[in-house]
Structures are given as C-alpha cells and as structure tokens.
C-alpha cells in the first residue's frame, strides 16, 4: 500500500507569520495549490485557503495586514510514513481537504484529499482487475474439474 509521502506535493507554498495578506494573494494566484501554509521556521503553524482570503478581503481587511490574522491555526497534520488507508480515516474524521505533512516537526509536503482519494481509487481499480483475472482462472479450473470427472470417472479406482 502506498504511503502519504508517495502522493504528497513536495513543493509547498509557505509564508512566514509576518507576511502580508497581499503576498499570500500573489502566492495563491501564482501557484494554484489552493492554500498556503504559514510556518514559523520549518514548523507549520497555520493554513490559509483561497476562501479564507476572499472572505477577509470582502470583509474589508487590508492587503497590508499580516496573514497570521486570517489563518486557521489548529492544523491537523499527517506524517509521511502514514498509510493511505489511515490518511483516509483522518480525512473522514477531520473533514479537512488539505493537510501539511510533517516529519520530525519539519514541514515536508502537502497532502490533499484529492490525491489520496485518487490514489486509493486507482489502487482499488488495479486490485479489481487482478481479482477478476483470478475469478476467471477459478471458473476455468472448475470447468476443467467438471470435464475431467465426467470422462475419467470410470477409469479412476474409486469404489465400484
């Protein structure tokens, strides 16, 4: 089974706590990741999504105020060695779409619900094909046994 490190985005757009909302907007516009991670050194402390930014700009927040004022600071993170099944469980419970991936307190990537669900779905599809092949072999085997018994029954030394 694949792990979070196989599906995560390595190059995460990051900003410091003191960065301005305007910078965040430029970064979001340029990258298309849908969110940026606010970090203190290498440690993620918050996340700003596009909708957060739009909400705050609409409310009249200046583009010059710091991002720490609009970020969501209780971030749920994942570890790179987490299995995708466990990651999906976390997603089902927490209901977020984006998770910073943290290894030894350092930000190493960004895992999204999209990538995890797609990876699992591909995996299931792959397994389904294998299972179908196995089923076909089973059926052929059954048929073989059936025919074999029909024609060889009388030559087999089994009872009368």
């Amino acid at each position, binding site marked *: 089974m694949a792990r979070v490190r196989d599906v995560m985005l390595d190059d995460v757009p990051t900003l410091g706590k003191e960065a301005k909302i*305007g910078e965040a*907007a*430029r970064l*979001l*516009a340029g990258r*298309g990741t*849908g969110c940026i991670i606010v970090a203190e050194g290498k440690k993620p402390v918050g996340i700003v999504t*596009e*909708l957060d*930014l*739009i*909400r705050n*700009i*609409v*409310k009249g927040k200046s583009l010059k105020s710091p991002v720490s004022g609009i970020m969501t600071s209780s971030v749920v993170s994942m570890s790179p060695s987490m299995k995708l099944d466990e990651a*999906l469980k976390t997603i089902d419970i927490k209901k977020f*779409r984006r998770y910073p991936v943290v290894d030894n307190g350092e930000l190493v990537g960004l895992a999204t*619900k*999209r990538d995890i*669900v*797609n990876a*699992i*779905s591909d995996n*299931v599809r792959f*397994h*389904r094909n294998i*299972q179908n092949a196995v*089923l076909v072999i*089973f*059926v052929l*085997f*059954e048929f073989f*046994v*059936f025919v074999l*018994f029909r024609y060889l029954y009388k030559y*087999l030394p*089994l*009872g009368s």
Partner: protein
Amino acid sequence: MMNVRNIMTKDVVTVAQASGLKEAAMLMASKSVSSLVVMEKNRPIAVVSETDIIKGISSSKPRVKDVMSREFMIISPLTRFSEIISSLREKKIKRFPVVENEKLVGLITETDVIEATRDFTRFHQIVQEVILAIFGLATAFFLFYFSPIGASMFG
C-alpha cells in the same frame, strides 16, 4: 450507478460578466461556494474560480469579465461519469455546468467528483468481497459435488 444528477450541486450561484469583481467575491464568500457560473442569455459562457478571483484582486482587475475562464465543459444529466473523470484528469477541466432543456440545473466541481469517487470506492470494495465469497462457496460446492464423496452423497 453513479449519476450526474445525484452528485451535482443544485444551487448554482451565477453572475453576469459585467458585474464587479468585488460583487463576485462577496457572492462567493456569502454562499461558501468555490465557483461561480457566468451566464449570458441563459447560457453558461464561462466560470470563475477562487483562484481567478484572487488573481483579479492581486492584479486589481475591476470586472468578472477580466478574470473569468473558459475552461469548463457543459454536460447533460445523462453524461457518463467516466467521461467527466477523463476530462478532469486529462484536460484539467474542473467545472462542469449541467444543462438540461437549455436550462442550467446544476454544477459538478472537482470536489463533487472526489466525494463520489470516495463513496464509490467504498461501495466497490464491499461488492468485490461479496462476489469473491459467493465464488469461493460455489467452487467449494462444485468440488464437493463432483468428488467421490459428494457423488455418493448426492447419488
């Protein structure tokens, strides 16, 4: 099976291409949607995403017209799900307005597709296990039925 009608968002938020960017941003924030459909003469002509709005704000464009994107695909309620998935993955189209009888009845976004895929995956795993169990039992029965012990039992 997966049906466009079951996974689409029915309350589509629409906007005119002449409206201001601020107005569009306000609509998006108040309705908590990730995309708006730009309508003209009752037809969807473009879509606006969160990224488009932010791009517009950071380069101070005044109107929806300046930021909207044409990267969308009109589908009908009868469109096959696999078609949507392949457009999403290969052509990177992320928004699918659903039009029926020349009327906009819904919108499918990437999020809806992911939700559906997630549910479908779960469903498929269960179905696959049930099929395997049935085949396993059938095989066991076949082997038994045609084996000498089975033959003596069933005659």
